[in-house]
């Protein structure tokens, strides 16, 4: 692991009213690491995710991105610092075309900002970059269709495309394979592996199978606390994890 961490969580806590959802999570994720956070339903995975990406403010604790404190930063500011996320529920621009979806994701990173003197249609490099990403996520064929009419797996692929398009070096994916069939899952996992080369990836997953082939390290979140962190094999061997999660979940799923 490198010395500077890409993302660092410091005793992060979140209460909703009286309910403690996240009870003190500390985590250090290195550059170019693929890190998975797993845990049973209701463990607080999505909440943790939303705390990191600034959607909810934490009750206490801190998040550092490349050593910078994220406290009080709006989502768009966090994004500009190099973190990009996807959503658990498909979150795209349904009325715009597939091409437009990806191109919008590229705009800020390509330095267009709030300009109203550039005509995006004329920027051929923008169109090229968009087409490149479309090719990566295999949606070139669907280019001109409104995103809302794509199939579920295609929408998820598009979502990943939007997430990586901005060129962020820290990519966070929230259950990218939720609700998919096996073949669709394999397809998405391959896609994730392909598009996150050289980037830091943090993904929240429910499905163990997805994570084992993909992640460098795994953290297990149970009732708002991380009970184990380590290489996939280590985690698999961990007794506490076996007890809290794997036993029941694996049996249920396989």
């Amino acid at each position, binding site marked *: 692991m490198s010395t500077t961490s890409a993302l660092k969580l410091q005793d992060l806590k979140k209460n909703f009213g009286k309910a403690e959802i996240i009870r003190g999570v500390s985590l250090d994720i290195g550059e170019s690491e693929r890190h998975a956070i797993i845990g049973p339903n209701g463990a607080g995975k999505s909440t943790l995710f939303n705390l990191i990406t600034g959607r909810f403010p934490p009750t206490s604790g801190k998040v550092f991105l490349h050593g910078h404190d994220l406290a009080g930063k709006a989502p*768009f500011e966090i994004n500009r610092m190099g973190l990009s996320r996807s959503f658990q529920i498909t979150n*795209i*621009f349904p*009325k715009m*075309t597939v091409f437009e979806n990806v191109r*919008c994701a590229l*705009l800020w990173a390509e330095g267009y900002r*709030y300009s109203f003197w550039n005509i995006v249609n004329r920027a051929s490099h923008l169109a090229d970059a968009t087409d490149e990403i479309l090719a990566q996520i295999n949606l070139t064929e669907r280019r*001109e269709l409104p995103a809302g009419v794509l199939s579920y797996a295609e929408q998820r692929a598009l979502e990943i495309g939007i997430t990586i398009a901005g060129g962020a070096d820290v990519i966070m994916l929230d259950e990218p394979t939720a609700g998919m069939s096996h073949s669709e899952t394999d397809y998405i996992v391959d896609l994730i592996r392909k598009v996150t080369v050289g980037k830091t990836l943090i993904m929240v997953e429910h499905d163990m199978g997805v994570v084992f082939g993909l992640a460098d390290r795994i953290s297990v979140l149970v009732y708002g606390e991380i009970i184990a962190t380590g290489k996939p094999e280590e985690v698999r061997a961990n007794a506490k994890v076996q007890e809290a999660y794997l036993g029941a979940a694996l049996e249920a799923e396989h």
Partner: protein
Amino acid sequence: MTDITQKSTATPAMTMGNTLPWILAAAFLFIAPIIFSSNSAITIMNQMGITMVFALAYNMLLGQGGMLSFGHAVYMGVGGFACVHVMNMTDLFEKMPLPVLPIVGGLVGMLFAIAIGSFSTRKAGTVFAMISLGVGELVAACSVIIVVFFGGEEGVSGDRTYGMPFFGIEFLRQIEVYYLTSFWLLVSALLMFLFSRTPVGRMANAVRDNPERAEFLGYSARWVRFYSFVASGFFCGIAGGLFAINFEILTEENLNLATSGGILLMTFLGGAGFFFGPVLGVVTFVLLQTVLGLQTELWALYVGALFLATVMFFPGGLSGLIMMHVTPMRLGKLNRLYVPYLKVFVPAIIGTLSLCGFIEILFHARHAALGEDEMTIFWTTFSSHAILPWIITIVVAVGGIWLAKQSAPELNEAWHDANTPDGGAR
């Protein structure tokens, strides 16, 4: 569906397909006054042109930014008032060619939009709508209180001809104003179209569809809304300036809720989903208002009903209705729709007209002067107190609508068929 915004083209530069509509529009604007040459026709066309600029600017918010404003007349009005005041500053105005004046209106409209937008665009949806309503009411109320700027009830008037002659043109005649308005209409429409192609314009669409996602793309939804709002304010101000030039007077009417509501009505009628929708809406509305207004006192009733029907059945408006047919046309199956269309719309139209006839008879029977039983509708003259016309209209209305309803499933099927490529569904 009907809300798909403009198709993006991969081609980097403007192509023939992109410029052709603009050339056609310019050509049409150029020859229109030769066909409709009377002064009143030109006056109405001026009015249409100004409203088109306003409606297009309004649609930058409604259609492209997803912001529903109930007080947008304010930005046009304020820009217009500023222009009239410039007209009255003789020293300045003498050195200023009239065609430049709308820019003043635009800048003032923009400044005002910056002031209001700084807090109103923080949220979209209902918060934005309610703030726009509140600000609209406040400014409209101020128009009678702040007499210095708004001139109270009688408004502020000026004289456009006191400006510096522009290549010898003094804008004495309506036709000269027409070409001035047309020029600005084209320029503004083109600029607004190009705006929708800029990063902010594109992101406005993204923010409209999904503000949260847009935030995670590095854009602040609030600032994207703000820039759209300011740009819209600028073009509203241009429209206000053109109004000042054409009518040479601005009054409370230019600020009030009725005007704001009217522009919403026209924009929605034309269809907010497409760039040209508002233009269509303005033309339709003005024609309806004049042609129907000529025929019947009840025109507002019919327009209201038509508007409701549009919202209920064709939420994409007229432009949405037209664009719906692009897919069948591409598939070459438009011809399969002709017969079902005839089967539904002929009885439906006849039924609706009969219903209107019935309403007219009722209205006439109740409100006409004593001894004036005679009335004429649909080129037939009869007595509104006789029983036969009542029966005829009711029977035809009910029958027509019933027939249309009977044929509706068939149309539905045909529509589905026409929209599905041959050889299996996707």
